[in-house]
């Protein structure tokens, strides 16, 4: 039985006790799947999981608190579920997690780059997964691409491809891409120096259109409709199109996620302008991991910034 | 005893002792614990705590010409028990080192013995006990020193008459010669470091 079929039967088995199961189905275009809310067996025929299962279904869980729901989870999705549960933003017992071993997900921007000169990604007729490769039907004929070349960046540093702590796990656990996330991307980024980075953000943020897609895609954003970006009491940022205001929103989002971000990368993926906003969050995650050994969504116990030790062995304070 | 004029405190000397020893002599509150535990007290002209007091008062001459700084055995009892955690033995060392540089030898036999020992090391690379004794007798004229011990120890074969000379004895001699030429003088070396730093800066600019 394929993973696909196994997942379907796992969903089918669980459905009677659940108000719905969140998974993925066909999206607006062949390269994009969309979240699918499965309420009955009939919905199952639209279900598919695999290379296109980009969205993080955990996003919807806090709003569904109070009812029993199922969720089909990749490794990174399961981390979000774990973190939400740790923070009691969801009740873990209410969520039925059906996990499977994720082989990575598509980054459409990379496909676009790979198809440069061939066609726009929107013109692709169909996508067929074929082991480590995909075959794309384009107006100029079939194009075969290696999955690893068009997978999201996060997949290249994935240490938890298998949904951890799933209630049901389907398929065979696969080995992680890397054993440890060394945050090499952040180190390399940081190495560019403050002057260059300042200019980098000035340029990037000048493109921001304040659409808040980054925030809306974040499964761990707790504020939802009460974001301080849109508030006058308190009044943290102005409503201008200026770089400082726009940048400061990213700072707020990053700081709010420090010690909580599981690195699912939905913020960056959702950004219509391709601003690499995940970098800020990963810089803080690296710090939190180094200081407190805390991997959000995997570790249990109080998140590190909501607790303390009287003696902090890892914090080397400045000696004045 | 002379009246001590407290206005005439040699503050540069206080500073020199503090720098050389790395200790703050103002921490001493004259409890006398160092004197109380000092095994060599009975040989001193000034007790240890009094030396500390004299340093506090900047009485350079009296400190440097005292026998006490030469007779300190370095047993560290004072340092160990000082309630203010002053390395008192280190302060005594510093005073002796300054005295040595200023050629003040408050206890002749002691400085002569040190010289004899160092000469033996300079010749051989190691100290040679018989050689050291002979040099000491030569320097002090005390030719009967410990002569009664000779019949006890010589038959034991523990006092070889000839020294063990090491291959690198020239190297050792050079170290001592350079020292005697004053090449390790703190002021000289500090000045050297500073000009070095300055020229390095120049090279950069």
């Amino acid at each position: 039985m394929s993973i696909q079929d196994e997942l379907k039967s796992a969903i089918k088995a669980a459905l009677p006790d659940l108000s719905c199961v969140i998974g993925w189905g066909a999206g607006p275009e062949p390269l994009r799947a969309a979240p699918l809310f499965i309420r009955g067996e009939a919905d199952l025929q639209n279900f598919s999981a695999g290379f296109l299962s980009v969205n993080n279904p955990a996003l919807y869980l806090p709003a569904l608190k109070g009812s029993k729901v199922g969720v089909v989870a990749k490794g990174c999705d399961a981390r979000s579920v774990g973190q939400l549960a740790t923070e009691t933003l969801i009740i873990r017992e209410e969520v039925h997690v059906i996990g499977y071993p994720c082989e990575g997900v598509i980054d459409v921007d990379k496909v676009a780059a790979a198809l440069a000169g061939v066609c726009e990604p929107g013109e692709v007729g169909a996508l067929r997964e074929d082991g480590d490769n995909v075959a794309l039907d384009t107006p100029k004929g079939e194009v075969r691409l290696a999955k690893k070349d068009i997978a999201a960046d996060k997949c290249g540093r994935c240490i938890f491809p298998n949904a951890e702590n799933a209630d049901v796990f389907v398929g065979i656990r696969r080995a992680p891409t890397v054993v440890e996330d060394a945050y090499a991307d952040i180190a390399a980024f940081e190495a560019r120096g403050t002057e260059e980075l300042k200019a980098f953000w000035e340029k990037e943020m000048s493109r921001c259109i304040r659409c808040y897609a980054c925030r809306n895609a974040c499964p761990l954003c707790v504020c939802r409709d009460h974001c301080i970006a849109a508030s006058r009491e308190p009044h943290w940022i102005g409503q201008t199109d200026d770089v400082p205001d726009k940048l400061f929103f990213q700072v707020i989002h990053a700081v709010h996620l420090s010690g909580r971000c599981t690195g699912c990368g939905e913020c960056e993926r959702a950004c219509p302008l391709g601003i690499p906003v995940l970098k800020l969050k990963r810089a803080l995650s690296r710090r939190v991991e180094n200081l407190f050994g805390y991997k959000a969504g995997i570790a249990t116990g109080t998140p590190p910034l909501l607790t303390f030790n009287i003696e902090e062995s890892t914090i080397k304070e400045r000696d004045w | 005893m002379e009246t001590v004029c407290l206005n005439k405190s040699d503050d540069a000397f206080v500073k020199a002792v503090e720098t050389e020893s790395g200790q703050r002599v103002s921490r001493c509150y004259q409890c006398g614990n160092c004197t109380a535990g000092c095994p060599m007290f009975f040989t001193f002209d000034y007790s240890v705590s009094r030396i500390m007091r004299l340093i506090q008062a900047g009485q350079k001459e009296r400190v440097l010409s005292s026998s006490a700084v030469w007779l300190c055995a370095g047993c560290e009892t004072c340092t160990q028990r000082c309630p203010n955690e002053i390395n008192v033995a280190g302060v005594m060392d510093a005073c002796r080192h300054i005295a040595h540089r200023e050629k003040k030898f408050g206890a002749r036999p002691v400085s002569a013995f040190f010289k004899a020992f160092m000469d033996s090391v300079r010749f051989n690379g190691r100290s040679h006990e018989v050689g050291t004794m002979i040099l000491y007798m030569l320097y002090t004229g005390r030719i009967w020193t410990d002569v009664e011990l000779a019949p006890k120890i010589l038959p034991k074969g523990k006092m070889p008459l000839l020294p063990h000379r090491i291959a690198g004895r020239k190297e050792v001699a050079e170290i001592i010669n350079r020292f005697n030429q004053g090449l390790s003088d703190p002021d000289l070396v500090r000045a050297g470091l500073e000009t070095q730093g300055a020229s390095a800066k120049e090279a950069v600019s």
Partner: protein
Amino acid sequence: MSVLEGKELRVVGFLCNWCSYGGADTAGVGRFTQPTDLRIIRVPCSGRINPLFVMKALVGGADGVLVSGCHPRDCHYAEGNYYARRRLEVLKGLLPVLGIDPRRFEYTWVSASEGQRWQHVVETFTAQIHALGPAQPFAGASRPADRHRPDAAAV
């Protein structure tokens, strides 16, 4: 003008009321001379200091930000400084990635009796900021971050 051109840089301090603000007072009572760059914002506890205040100051044009609270175990509110320590320590990881020199931000602990320590902290930190020089404001603001805007223009 707000800071003296060529003489001062913009250094913002966030101090808890009970220990560090008192320590700064003690330094004043003791006439411990300090550079004039620092402006102090008084808050009840270092735990009140949202790291975003620090960021607001740095993004808003401060050349340096200094946070000071009660020593660990001495917090007037028992635990506030423990949380502050974690949050501010984590915050340090964000600055270089954003293009802000991390040396522009420090936090420390000064008790109400440590006037001399406060003097030392202010001297050291101010010297550190002067060594870094003025921070260039993030470009692209509609309100020009005019560093020497006369007061008259503010009204």
